[in-house]
Every structure is written in structure tokens, then in C-alpha cells.
């Protein structure tokens, strides 16, 4: 409870009543031994000086998060002046390896024992995305240019806790921050990603050559998952 009022008051010339003393003293003692709560701790009564390191928080970091199961693929740029096409190899994934949908990076994840409280989760990293601006073979006949994109999501025990927006730039930064309540136990935080499906989703036109499917599409790297567990 928050307050204790007089349980026994010693008055001059009265006997020193042991029951009164015990009642007052035990109340005080009981308050310290378990009655303390946020109501009767004055503001500022506990500062960093009184706290041992990691008394109220735990953190876990997973550095070096990058795309798994990548391939080396070749991107081709047409030379507008009539010269030979320019090719470059990229470590990436492509439509030979990816058919759409979310893919979880289950190799580089955080799995640790957390206490009941809040979990502050952050992900930072960069990505590379091939889009229509800088390579060939991404248009389809008669239609507009395709806009390819990528997207990232963080999972807590398999459930999405934050989904980023779609990224359309060729190269960009990803920054995801979320706070979620958790119970005590081992929890797993993982990254998953997706990018726009096969560049020609039309039901009429299908990719015409294996070359297109082999074009590099997407890659991410330099990622780090940081998890801070604040105890309740």
C-alpha cells in the first residue's frame, strides 16, 4: 500500500506498550519487505547510482544480417551509343530462385530468454534492387513500365510485429523500430523480406526467355537486429 498512519502513539507517562510498538514497527518493516511500490517511492529516489548494471534491461544483437542462398547473376545495360551491352555480376537473388511471397531469414536471427516487459526491436540495413530505370528486360509489351519494389518485416515468434513500407529506389536504407510487450520466455526475432513478383504478372504474357529470369533482382546486407528487453 502507499501510506501508513500511526498504529501506536507513545505518550509521556504511559507504559511503553510493546504491542503498540510492534504494531508500528512491523508495519514499517512490512512496508519495506514487500509493500513498496511505485506509489510510495518518491520521484527520483532511485537513480542510476542505485541500480546495478543490467538490472532492468537486457539486450541482444544480431549483426551481419544479409540475404541467404544468393547467386551470382548478370545484369545487362544496353549501350545507347550502339556499343556492346554492358554486363555486371551481382550477388543477389533472381526469379529463378524466388517466386514471390515473404521469405524469412531463419539463419541470422535473435533467439534469447527475455523477461516479462517490453521488447524494443530495431533493424537497420541496406538493400539493392534492380528496377526499371537501369536495366533491360523489365518492360512488357504495350504496358507501362513495371515498378519493382521490396519490403521488410520483423517477426516475433513468427508473428509480424512491424512491416515497413515498399521501397522503390535502386539502393536504400531500411530502418524498422517497434516496441512490443512480451511474456517471460525464449523469444525469437527474425527478419523477413519480399519483393515484387515476377516482372510480368500478366496472365497473357509470360516470360519469354530464361535469360530474363536469371537477371539479378534483389539483395540486402549490412543488417543488424538489436533487441532491448525492458523488464516490467
Amino acid at each position, binding site marked *: 500500500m502507499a501510506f501508513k*498512519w*500511526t498504529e*501506536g*502513539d507513545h505518550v509521556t*507517562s504511559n507504559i511503553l506498550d*510493546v*504491542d503498540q510498538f510492534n504494531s508500528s514497527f512491523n508495519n514499517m518493516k512490512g512496508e519495506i519487505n514487500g509493500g513498496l511500490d511505485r*506509489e510510495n517511492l518518491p520521484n527520483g529516489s532511485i537513480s542510476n547510482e542505485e541500480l546495478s548494471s543490467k538490472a532492468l534491461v537486457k539486450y541482444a544483437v544480431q549483426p551481419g544480417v544479409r540475404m541467404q542462398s544468393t547467386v551470382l547473376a548478370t545484369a545487362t545495360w544496353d549501350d545507347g551509343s550502339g556499343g556492346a551491352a554492358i554486363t555486371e555480376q551481382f550477388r543477389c537473388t533472381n526469379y529463378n530462385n524466388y517466386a514471390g511471397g515473404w521469405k524469412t531469414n531463419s539463419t541470422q536471427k535473435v533467439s534469447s530468454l527475455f523477461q516479462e516487459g517490453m521488447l524494443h526491436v530495431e533493424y537497420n540495413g541496406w538493400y539493392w534492387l534492380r528496377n526499371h530505370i537501369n536495366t533491360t528486360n523489365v518492360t512488357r509489351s504495350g504496358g507501362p513500365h513495371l515498378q519493382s519494389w521490396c519490403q521488410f518485416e520483423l517477426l516475433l515468434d513468427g508473428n509480424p510485429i512491424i512491416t515497413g513500407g515498399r521501397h522503390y529506389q535502386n539502393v536504400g536504407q531500411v530502418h524498422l523500430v517497434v516496441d512490443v510487450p512480451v511474456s517471460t520466455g525464449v523469444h525469437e526475432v527474425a527478419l523477413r523480406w519480399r519483393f515484387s513478383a515476377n516482372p510480368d504478372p500478366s496472365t497473357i504474357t509470360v516470360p519469354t526467355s530464361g535469360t530474363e529470369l536469371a537477371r539479378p533482382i534483389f539483395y540486402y546486407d549490412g543488417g543488424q537486429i538489436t533487441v532491448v528487453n525492458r523488464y516490467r
Partner: protein
Amino acid sequence: MDPRLKLEVPRVGGIDELLPQKDDSATILENFTVDPATGGWDNRIGYEKYFPNATLYQPFTTEKRIHSLYVWSTHSGARTYTLFESENIASARCNLRFTVGNVAGAGQIVDIDTFRRIPTLNEPVTDFEPFGRYLIIVNGHDKPLKWDGEKGNNQIPTLGWESVPGPVSPWTPDINPLNGALGGLGKGQVQFYGIAAADPFDSATNQNSQNSGVPIGFQNTYGLGSKTVNAKNNYRWRVSFVSETGSESPLSASSELAKWQTSGAGTQLRQAVLLENLPTGPRGTVARRIYRTKNLGSGISADNEGAYYFVAEVKNNVETSYSDSTPDQFLVTLAPSETESVLFPCPGARFAAAFKNCLFLDGGQSDPTRVYFSNPLNPDSFSASNYFDVGVRDGGDITGLFAYYNSLIVFRESSVELVRGDPSTGFNVVPFIQGIGCRAINSVTSVPGIGVMFLGNDGVYRIFGGLDGGSQVQIEKMTPNLVKTEKRFNSALLARASATYSPKWREWHCYMPVDGEEKPAFGLVYHVDKNTWSTRKDFPISVIASDQNGELVFGHNTGKVGLPSTWETGLFVVSRKRARGYSVVTVPGDPPTQATQASPPPNAKYRSKWHDMGKAAQKKFVKYVYLHVMTKGDNTIPLTYYRDFDYTGITSSGEKMQRADHPDQGVFGTAVWDTAVWEDPFFTTIRYPIAQGASSTFAFEFETQNDIVLVGYSLEFGANKTQTIKGKR
């Protein structure tokens, strides 16, 4: 021979004012509590500041009389809000506030609602009722509030719905309603466009031609309207608010018709409709629900009304538009009927009670015989038919509501009624008793083992028993023997009486105005363990409440009025502190400061019953009074004794509360460090010699500020054959 007789009262009882009095009773019993170790009367009580170590009365600095008080304990007592409502010396209005933490100082009081109406002297004060995670706050004048313990002044949502949402404005799909040509109404609605469409801007027609409908591939499962050539399509929408309690507001009026005709040529497509002006709700709104008709069909110009179905919930109170593409076949759940949620019917409610998951409120002063109840678990939504009118029977206005066992007790000025039933089978109200009423809703208290105690118009009553399982609800007067005290009540101001039960003290305290006074200054205390009554005097209690531990917190009945040296302000606590409040003294220094100084303890007064020793007509000669007490120390207590109901008596010398034929126990102030021991109080007898002539009846009295625990007493007396003489003519 002097035939000594003895009258033994092993354990003293409570007040009995009905003559002749019961054997162990007292005529006066003032400022005592029950000593749990002996069952005797213990006068070691007093009151102290709510923040005992605070400078002066901080954080209470401007409070005048405290009008209402409620201790709301949440989170297993970890978060306890002591709410109080006080007049403020700086304004002519009340502020509703609560205390924070246990350190007095700035910021330890938080305003919940300011500039509230000051209750008149004879009207009930603010009523507080927990409902789930909310505290419902009503006072009959200010808007009823529902407080969650977090929100501050001007942020607290009001109870119920005060207004109906406005209708949405649907944008008719941009197709000519007459011929189905594109670009008809020119509003440029951008909803869906075909994936095979060319540049959205048609340079040939210089018009926006993108509204060609739901994309091919989705058109059979999404979108509004018919795909039949030249079909006419009509829709209407309605909207409701959803509060943070989950309550749904009344539905808005129907929107305008959104009407269009499916194209007569080319591909027939379904449409999505943009709803604009989606209304945002009042404080506390967390979502909006959208309802829609199914396709009203060919009535393109007819004002068709069909059934409305749930479309979607917009889970915020910010967005002002919504795009509706939910097809008719997905519309399954019917909208609530118009009568299911209506505007808040009782904005002037004075009393609130939670019963069977519903919130019950009275109709207020303008509708004083009506009881309204909310939809179950939704304290904000009230159906049109959710009310009773008890005015069809005698009994006066409703004066309070109180949930008890499986009934809701409706107190009226001169009758009591019961609400029975539950929300699924319906509630009904039945008369319980006529002739007994309760104007003091703040005195109604549930007391374990006793039932519901309340201060009626002519004494204290209890309601006990139930209506289920063969039980029977009964009512009983608990103060039939307090015939003089009852006459002191100021019946005009009983609405301001305040009572609470303390499980710590095992007492029911009720404070009310007496002797024509305007403020409660007199207390009636029922001691559960002894099943008897005592009184409290000199406790300036305006309102009282017990916290989760049974501590008796009270608000001062005067507050910051008068001289600084005498005023006490804010909240106080009845405790074992041997002080009757405080006075303010100047502490010398440079500069001098002011501090509170504890006042002397309250006077405790005990007067025995008038003893006739079994035969009033025979004269008695009382020789000794033996008080059976617990040793308390060297402070002396004199005895005054009376005969035959005289006003004045004879006062004996004071006696120490020490064993007479033993060395004295060590006392505070003389003990030597490391030598003295803590003492146990011993049960002993103190003899007082009585020097008084013959009497028919005898009584003794003591009035003291010194500590005493009176367990019982005995009288030693002689009697001869002298009888009362013949009556006077």
C-alpha cells in the same frame, strides 16, 4: 453488619438510550473503539494529516470544505487514487482532484475536472462507481464522466453519446447515370482502374477516364453494383462511433444515394465508392463503423431505404474518408436497430450503480423517478427502452442506487424498491418496502455479515438476505435504542451524511449534521464485534471513505477558513495518533517559519447506565466502583458519580492506571536506556471510593484525554430497607 452487595459487569457494552437500560449498556460512549485483545473500550484514537510528515498541510493549501471523497484502488492496491472534490478559496467552484504518491509537495495533486458545481447543503454529493476499468463520476449537474485513472483535466471523456454522427457523403462513381458514359459527374473519383488501361489521363478526350471499375479478375468478388448491362445501382450508408469502452453510438442518418448505371457498352464493371466526410467522434472515440444497404436496384430516383449491413470498422478517429469496395454478398451482419443505441438519456444523473454488467443511472432532478440502464458491458450505449419509472408508486424521488447480492436497491425518499433480473432475460423493478426511505446515499454501505447498512430518515437500517435459494430480503432497524441521538439528526441535510465500513477497525462510521448544524460533525459508530453503538465527537469529518486496507480517510468539513493558526485543510486519517488534529505555530528562527503542532487527544467520555441494582424503589449506598482496565501508566483518570439522574455529580480523585499492589510499570519519559523493557498492559482493577448518600439509581462517568481501556466494572454497595418515599402532590 453491613451487608455488602456486588454488581458485576464483566464486559461493558454500547449505548442504550431506551430506559430502563440494558445491563451492560452505557448512557454515553464517546470516542472509543473496541480493544481487540479484551473486547473492552479503548480510547486510543485520534486523527492525523493524510501526509503526516508534510510541511503544514501540504499539498492541501487552498481547500475549503471537502464535499466528496472516494478511494479507488486499482492494480492490487499499487495504484490507489484518493479522489476528492473541494471548494477552493480562489474560486466559487469545486475541483475534482486526486492525490499522487506519498510525498507531499507540488504536483502531488492532479486535477481531474475543474469548475464543477458546488453541491448545495442538502443535495447529495458526487457519486463514484467503478465500472470495469473506468470510474463513473456523476453529480447531477456537471457532465457525467468516465475516468480511466490516466487522463487529466479536459481530457476525460464524458459518459454516453451526446450527439449522432453526421452522414457520410458518397462520391457517385464517375459515370454518367443516364447513359453509363465515363466522366459523367465529373467528380474525378479515383478508385480502381483497369490494369490494362492506358495513360490515366486521356489526352484524346482531355478528360479523366480512369474510372473503368474494379480490375478484371477481381470484378466478380469485389466492388459495388451490378454487372448487368444498363443496370441501375443505388446505395446508402450510415455510420456510428465506437468508444473506448466498446460502446457503439446511435447510427447516423442515411447518406445521400450513390447512384449510377452500369455501362451499356464495352465491359461492365463493378465500382468502388469513396465515402467523404466520415465523421470523427467526440473524446474517447476509438473507431467508426460503416454500414451500407445492399444494392437498392432500379430505384434510381426513388428514396429507397433497405436494411443496413456492417461493412467495415475504421479503427481510428482521424481518417475522414473510406473507400467501399465490399460487395453485397459479403454483407452479412445487420446494423444495430435505431433503438439499440440512443443519445445519452440522463445527462443529469446523480447516482450510478453497476449491476449485472449494466450501468444504472437515475434520471436526475428533472426526471427524478426514472432509472436508466446501459447495454451490458457498454456503459456508453443505452437502448431506447432501457428504463423504469418508479414514479407510478408512492415513495418520492429516487435518492440512490446500490447493487447488493442479486438485486439492485433503488432508494427513494420514503420507500425502497428492488431491481431484479439480468440483461438477457430483462430487468424488472419490484417494490420492497414503503415508509422507510434513505436520503443519504453516501451512507449506504455493504458490511460483511450484516448486509447493507444505511442511514434512513429516522435511524440506521440494514437490508439483509437475498431473493434466491429460498432466502428472503429483510429490513431491520439497527438503532431502536438510540432514541435521543436519532432526534438530533438534521433531517433536512441527511443527503450530506457520509458513511463507510472499515475492515481494519471493524466499524461502520457514519457522520451526519446534527443539532441543526449545516456540516457533519457528529459520528455514529457501529462496532461489528460487539454489535453495538458508540458516538464520535470533535472529528471534523465532512466525508469519509476507507481505503483498500480499511484506513479511514476523511475530508475536512471546514478547510481553509478562519485564522491560519486554527484552520486545517485537506484530507486526514482516523488513526491511533493521540491527537485531535493540529494547530499552526510559529517556529522561531530567521526568518520564523510555521509548522503544524498536534493538538491534545480527543476527549473520551464514558457514562455507565443508570443502575437500579434490580430494585429502583429501594435505596442503595454505593461504596466502591471497581474499573476493570488494562494498565496504561501514570496518567490519572478521575471518576464522577451521579445519583438519580442528577445533572451534577461528585468527582473523585484521579487514579493511575497501574496495578495498585505492585510496583509501577515503566513509563515513557522515565525509562532508562538499556535497562527499561517494553511493557505488556496487564489486566487490573482500579478501585474508586464513592462518597454519596442513598440513591435509587446510580451512574458513574469519566471523561479523559489520557489512555484507558475499559473492559468492565463492578459496583460494591449496601442496601437497607429504606424505600422511596411517597410521591409528591
